[in-house]
């Protein structure tokens, strides 16, 4: 494309604006997390005058952040791994077989992603509470209930992304495995999965991020023992004095695992997320 002479200026201005808009909150998060409480309470300043790492030590005492962290870790890891395991089989079927109901399955699964969460919240709450009363399996307030819920939430995108990855693996490789005596499942485990490892890891990260960031169900379906970070972080704000330096430090700490994971696997995630939309 021929670039007009003003384009570098437009680029500088436009991208500069977007970069500032994107980065200012991140800068505020980082710079406020190293300020003493007195400094964040006395009005905002761009440059921290006193540097301290105290907030990073205090966040664990003000609210039981450690418990929330462990809860989030358990719920997000188990639901991510389980979701991807379920999605691998479903995606293999969708990618390699043409069967009646295939389209209905993919369309239904994807469209649930678009429905309002609030629509499922009340009935699921009722089902979990009453299932507990009838069977004694306490899903309400338990990690298990949250794990099943999150695992299903990430399932549609996990299947969609994995179908994309599996489609890009030549079928000739499956055939070769079958000639060697593997069944269709053998071909899946010996050929397709090993060839799709980067994609599978990316989808696992995506499912983990989904569970790690979910707020609505976490705020209703958990109790004091099973509370996750999404709800627990608000604990700093309900105190009489909001410890904003600690809130920022805690936000930073809980963001690091997912942001690092996302950035490391950016290429595969972006490829998977965009594959369906641009096809």
């Amino acid at each position, binding site marked *: 494309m021929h670039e007009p002479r003003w384009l570098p200026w437009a680029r500088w201005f436009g991208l500069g604006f977007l970069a500032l808009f994107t980065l200012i909150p991140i800068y505020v998060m980082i710079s406020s997390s190293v300020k003493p409480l007195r400094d964040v309470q006395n009005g905002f300043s761009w440059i921290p005058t006193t540097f301290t790492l105290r907030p990073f030590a205090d966040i664990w005492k003000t609210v039981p952040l450690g418990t929330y962290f462990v809860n989030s870790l358990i719920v997000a890891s188990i639901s991510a791994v389980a979701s991807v395991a379920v999605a691998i089989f479903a995606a293999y079927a969708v990618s390699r077989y043409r069967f009646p109901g295939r*389209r209905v399955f993919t369309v239904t699964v994807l469209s649930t992603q678009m429905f309002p969460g609030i629509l499922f919240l009340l009935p699921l709450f009722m089902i979990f509470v009453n299932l507990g009363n009838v069977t004694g399996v306490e899903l309400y307030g338990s990690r298990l209930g949250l794990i099943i819920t999150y695992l299903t939430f990430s399932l549609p995108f996990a299947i969609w992304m994995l179908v994309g990855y599996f489609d890009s693996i030549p079928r000739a490789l499956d055939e070769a495995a079958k000639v060697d005596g593997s069944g269709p499942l053998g071909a899946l485990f010996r050929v397709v999965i090993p060839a799709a490892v980067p994609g599978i890891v990316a989808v696992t990260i995506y499912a983990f991020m989904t569970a790690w960031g979910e707020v609505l169900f976490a705020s209703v379906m958990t109790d004091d023992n099973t509370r996750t970070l999404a709800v627990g972080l608000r604990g700093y704000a309900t105190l009489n004095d909001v410890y904003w330096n600690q809130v920022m430090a805690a936000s930073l700490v809980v963001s690091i695992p997912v942001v690092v994971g996302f950035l490391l696997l950016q290429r595969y995630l972006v490829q998977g997320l965009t594959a369906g939309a641009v096809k």
Partner: protein
Amino acid sequence: MVARTTPHHDERRTAPPEGGPRPPGAGLHGRVVSRIPLRLRRLGLPYMLILPAILLELLIHVVPMLVGVGMSFLRLTQLYIRNWTAAPFAGLSNYQVAVNFDSAVGASLLHSFFVTVVFTILAVGMSWLFGTAGAVLMQGAFRGRGLLRTLFLVPYALPVYAGVITWSFMLQRDTGLVNHVLVDQLHLFGGDRPFWLIGGNSFAAVVIVAVWKSWPFAFLILMAGLQNIDKDLYEASAIDGAGWWRQLRSVTLPMLRPVNQVLILVLFLWTFNDFNTPYVLFGNAAPQEADLISVHIYQSSFITWNFGSGSAMSVLLLLFLLLVTAVYLVATSRRKSDA
């Protein structure tokens, strides 16, 4: 794609011939399986593979949705939450209350609906505009391009609550960055520090935070869409004498049309249903001016513990979204075939 009843591949090798050597470990189970006719097993395999996914979808999505529709016809108040089978049938009364705009409940639902419509139009429009501008300006090679692209994706990677809670700190009246810049540094508002999280400004606040959170997704999808445009089209239009603007209007935007069709629908649904942004930004007391529908239904359900009316509101919301989606798909597809 036409669905076919036979799989693409021959899996005859999965069934060892009767009496032939069996793989180790194939005991009684293996024998039973191999007696099932081969054709049937071949047909059944894809269904076995999607079965776990179907069961989970049924348990968490489909059944609750149907239960939710059922609940909307019950007088499901606090008394009956732990014993819902005893809840009396309410007919359409939950719906009548929700759409009776003379009553307090109906009037506030309608208000919340209109707030959400305006919020969605603004937030989706700005997210799309930012995403398009970002993606178009990122075309071409320049220094720092890769770094910038990564930075733009950070709000998307950040857990929603961490990003939004930072905005709520920035929007604090006395200690926030926004008033520091606007009042202390730019001397606007005649030295009065406005409130951003209560009152009329809260609407602007929630729109901006929603755009901050969702424009990177638009950017991501549009970047991929731009990469798929055939470079020859630009060469050809350049030979025809088209300048940069002309190419943007006659090549780039028309070629992005299918991508935009999906992108705008997805952004619309996510934004309209957004619960996280207002809930984390305002906490339990959403201001009237920024009373978005998801939080509205959530609060009216859990404050009154009237799940029957909450379900009726959710069903109305779903019907509205289905209607908009259907109209949107018909309208955008027809225009596409006209072109």
